[in-house]
């Protein structure tokens, strides 16, 4: 590439990046203005004295249990991510490595379920959970997220890429199916597991509708749902506080995204060729 084109390319990329980053920077800066101050204009956007206590106010300074929301989100997200990795990898192993009657048919059904939009199943799931009295519990938030046809599909493809000779060598070495799964196939599928984990994390952390449906008491709310209440009862026109709350919700996502960036890209292109 010639220097001129290189400069031009970078200029375009920098402009795009700035365009995409601007709202986040704006959010961060506004969150540091004194509580109840109006939306600052661009000239005064950088706060003279950063008001860090806005964060303390959001977390503990109101009668909303925001710290509790954060804990709920953390617990629910961790359980869903862990559960999804375990359940999907076991199912994917069965599809990729075990020979059983009807395997292809069952797998086709799994794929078909990918075509059903999420909200369609939420009411039946809601009714089922109500029937067993599990609404407004941790179970209601975690259980529906643990199974994922997408996850099974993604991991099955990854497991198929692990050479079969390795299983065979392990079987001759004395390994059971379980050992092959845990000590050969899983360790070699690290990037697919990270991809699925990252997707599951984002999906669960940012989920709004299901936690809203499945929980009713305030102390069982997740951050995403809890803070929508916050906006109504406290945020109102208090932009700095509202932006501080938004930062609290977004920060873990940003961290996960930055840490696992390359797996996202891989996840998106997975299956598009070797």
């Amino acid at each position, binding site marked *: 590439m010639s220097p001129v084109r290189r400069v031009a390319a970078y200029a375009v990329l920098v402009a795009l990046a700035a365009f995409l980053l601007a709202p986040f920077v704006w959010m961060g800066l506004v969150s540091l203005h004194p509580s109840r101050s109006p939306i600052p204009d661009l000239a005064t956007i950088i706060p003279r004295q950063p008001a860090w206590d806005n964060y303390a106010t959001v977390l503990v300074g109101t009668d909303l249990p925001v710290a509790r929301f954060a804990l709920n989100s953390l617990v629910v997200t961790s359980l869903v991510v862990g559960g999804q990795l375990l359940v999907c990898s076991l199912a994917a192993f069965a599809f990729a490595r075990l020979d059983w009657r009807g395997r292809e048919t069952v797998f086709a059904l799994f794929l078909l379920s990918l075509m059903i939009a999420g909200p369609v199943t939420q009411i039946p799931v809601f009714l089922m959970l109500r029937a067993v009295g599990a609404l407004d519990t941790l179970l209601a938030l975690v259980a529906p997220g643990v199974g994922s046809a997408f996850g099974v599909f993604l991991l099955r493809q990854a497991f198929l890429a692990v*050479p079969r*000779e390795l299983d*065979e*060598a392990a*079987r*001759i*070495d004395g*390994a059971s199916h379980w*050992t092959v799964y845990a000590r050969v196939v899983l360790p*070699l599928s690290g990037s697919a597991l990270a991809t699925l984990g990252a997707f599951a994390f984002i999906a669960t952390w940012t989920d709004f509708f299901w936690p809203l449906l499945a929980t009713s008491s305030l102390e069982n709310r997740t951050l995403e749902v809890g803070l929508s209440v916050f906006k109504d009862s406290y945020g109102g026109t208090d932009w700095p506080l509202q932006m501080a709350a938004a930062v609290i919700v977004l920060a873990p996502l940003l961290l996960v995204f930055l840490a696992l960036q390359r797996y996202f890209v891989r996840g998106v292109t997975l299956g598009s060729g070797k």
Partner: protein
Amino acid sequence: MAKVSFRGVSKVFGKDVRAVDNLDLEIRDGEFMVLVGPSGCGKTTALRMIAGLEEATSGDLVIAENRVNDVPPKDRDIAMVFQNYALYPHMTVYDNIAFGLRLRELKGTLWQLTHLGDARQIRLDIDRRVRETAAMLGIDGLLARRPKELSGGQRQRVALGRAIVRKPKVFLMDEPLSNLDAKLRIQTRAELIRLHRDLGVTTIYVTHDQVEAMTMGQRIAVMNNGVLQQCDEPETVYNKPANKFVAGFIGAPPMNFLNGTVNEGKIDVGPFRFGLPTAHPARSMEGQAVVLGVRPEDIYDTKNGVQVPVTEDNTFEAQVDVLEKLGAEDTAYLVAEGLNLIATLDPSSRVAAGTKSRFAVDLDKAHVFDAQSGHAIR
């Protein structure tokens, strides 16, 4: 150590692909047996059935007098070296070699926690055996590396180490040298022979390379289309091939085949007539179509280094089309009246490419095959 037998073993894939057809073969205790044949001949399938990686469709697989058809691979007391080595990429060389021992001898985490003393003793024992094996193969300096940090030859040794360390009853090797370069292959060939001599373990070795088969096997079993063609010592397979397939497959350059007809106790091949030794049974097959098989080294330049008496009945005139000088010998591609032959000549021979010469055939060493069935007539 153990005897291994295939008793009427067949393997059918899908509905009608017969990979192995009614195989009867017995590998003696401590023997180095080579299964050889072109790709798709069923040799690898036969090996995988003994390993337990494929189920036999019918027949009995027997290891050490026990029928093992329904025994899982891990309980057959065998070890296998794969063509692409199948090393665990996420484990070090040490762990690759120790993996099988740990699985077999450390019986799960719970057992280890309740038998701390025993587990410790076993770990020390495993460590000693891994190090001994690595030292024997000259890879003791590589134990901390991962497979991707090793050369092809080193990987090969690790794969061997993984098999040897368990002291199994039977070694199974599936084309273990095919991924090595030519020089390393010859070197490793000799090492495998030495290793077998030192350990004395029954070994079944699969290859498509007839040179490997000839040099390594105490006996070789030649297969084609799932059917065993001949099983015998290498010299016997070479000198007395059971049929045209074996004759053409074993030996390089390959045997020359000349289609002819028996006429007055001789074989007419185009304008040439070749006499047969006095007691040869083909002499009585008057008028029948046969195939005369002549190895390249049994054709001589009549002017130089000829080892047989030159007569009317064993010579022919041919044009030397191409002459390859290999140093120890010359390979001459001959064309005579529409026939193509390959001859291996002494380098002192003065034939030159593009000239005509007279060549003699050692008919005492020639082979005659039935034109229809391909069976040897002798």
